[in-house]
């Protein structure tokens, strides 16, 4: 099933505001997806926050190593008042900093830390960008596709756990 375009008053308003920075808006399995240019992600998120999306469900990323801009950042938003969800997606090149969503949704704090931990994507304006699940001195970001599933920071394991291998 291919995705259908998503055009209604809401997207029209967004397009009015951001013009070509809204790259695409589609419906897939009845789920709404906004594809946004990375340069205006911060503004779009702010606008959505103002538009009533008061609940940031999740922030996550997908790694596409073969692409020119290998990281997809995904924000899943929800509006309590209107009972609707929208996903915002933007593509980022390696090493680019992403605008943090913590000013609008303080709950993004840990979610962004997890993205940083797992993908190595840095967020600008984040109050406390550190690793969250892995030890702070771990090397590598496990959810990148170039990090094999059996890979571990063996030096860390040997230093801190005193065992030869972690697996």
């Amino acid at each position, binding site marked *: *099933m291919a995705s259908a375009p998503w055009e209604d008053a809401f997207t029209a308003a967004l397009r009015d505001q951001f013009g070509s920075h809204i790259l695409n808006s589609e419906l*897939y*399995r009845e*789920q709404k997806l906004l594809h946004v240019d990375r340069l205006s992600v911060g503004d779009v998120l702010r606008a959505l926050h103002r538009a009533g999306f008061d609940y940031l469900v999740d922030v996550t990323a997908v790694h596409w190593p073969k692409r020119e801009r290998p990281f997809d950042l995904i924000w899943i938003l929800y509006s309590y008042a209107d009972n609707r969800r929208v996903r915002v997606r933007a593509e980022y090149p390696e090493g680019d900093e992403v605008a943090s969503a913590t000013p609008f949704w303080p709950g993004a704090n840990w979610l962004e830390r997890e993205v940083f931990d797992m993908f190595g994507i840095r967020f600008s304006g984040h109050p*406390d960008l550190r690793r969250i*699940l892995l030890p702070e001195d771990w090397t590598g970001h496990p959810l990148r596709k170039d990090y094999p*599933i059996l890979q571990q920071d063996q030096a860390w394991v040997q230093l801190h756990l005193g065992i030869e291998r972690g697996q």
Partner: protein
Amino acid sequence: MSHRTTPDPLRGGPMTAPAPGESHLDSSEMILNMGPQHPSTHGVLRVVLKLDGERVVDAECVIGYLHRGVEKIGEHRTYMQFNPYVDRMDYVSAVSNGLGYCEAVEKLQGVVAPPRAQVVRVMLAELNRISSHIVWLGTHALDIGAMTPVFYSFREREEILKIFEKYCGARLTTHAFRIGGLQWDLYDGFESDLRRFCQTFPARVDEYETLLTENRIWRERTVGVGRLDATTCKALGVTGPVLRAAGVAWDLRKAQPYSGYEKYAFEIPVGENGDTYDRYRVRLQEMRQSCRIIAQAVDGIPDGPILARIPKVFKPPVGEVYHSIEAPKGELGFYIVSDGSLQPYRLRVRPPSFVNLQALRGMVRGALVADVVAIIGSIDIVLGEVDR
């Protein structure tokens, strides 16, 4: 003593950063590591407390001790093979995890489970909600010093686990559902087991209420402790009973019904103050409501197939989907990206415990050490899900 603490529940940032007006050179402060091995951190949660006497000045959660890389494992298993792994995230409510995952994959594939399967799923998921809340109740009461409820509640949980065992062959990590429906049909006596459970269970909840609800010590320990208002909850993304205790009648089973929840009559219990006591009351009421749902479902189990027609070699079309359910602890979401192969390209779990745990810091600031365990308990976290 406590008056230097800033009452901003949303404050982020590392713990060492001094708040405005906070002295940095105060020798009366003590750093206390609560966990990762502590009787009341419910697993391997470590909370670093900065104490002034027994008053908490600041706190920081250190998590990841149980990180197993579930999302990475998901990228290296077929959709079917990953199913048992989701049981091991929130291992107290494995059935709910399975429900969320199976429905997410079904949505990705574009199939719907047959009606009979949906009803069975609802019954098991609600049983699981009860068993999850019951474990929470027992351990939470134990944290606050009441020894007995934990044994009473495990007695009831045993009844539920026996039903699980008879239905799917496992008690805790059930692997009860399959993508597209169910593996097993109901066993003989399933309905009578459930009816008996629904008849006896409310009286058991009354027992907990006798021991706790009106008990003055319990109320002193919980009323007004760890308050979290609705605005803060929404800002932090807190969901589930914690949000409802703050007065927001939001439940995904009502807001965006899945698996046929729109067919059942039940109510969303809501608190007023968003404190530990209200969370307790909300969860107790939710158990009664779950019982109601089960009773309705048992009376209307339709006949028919239990598994939708899906190919044996299962390759969902290219696309991505986010599906979330109301797990006992809050919104449990699965974001799955398919590249058309046998395995998910990316599988993201939106864990309710992880997000809810963020609220801990704001809640414990200014509280006492004894409140910290009460508050941790009232969020109801499972570290298997926080760390994944």
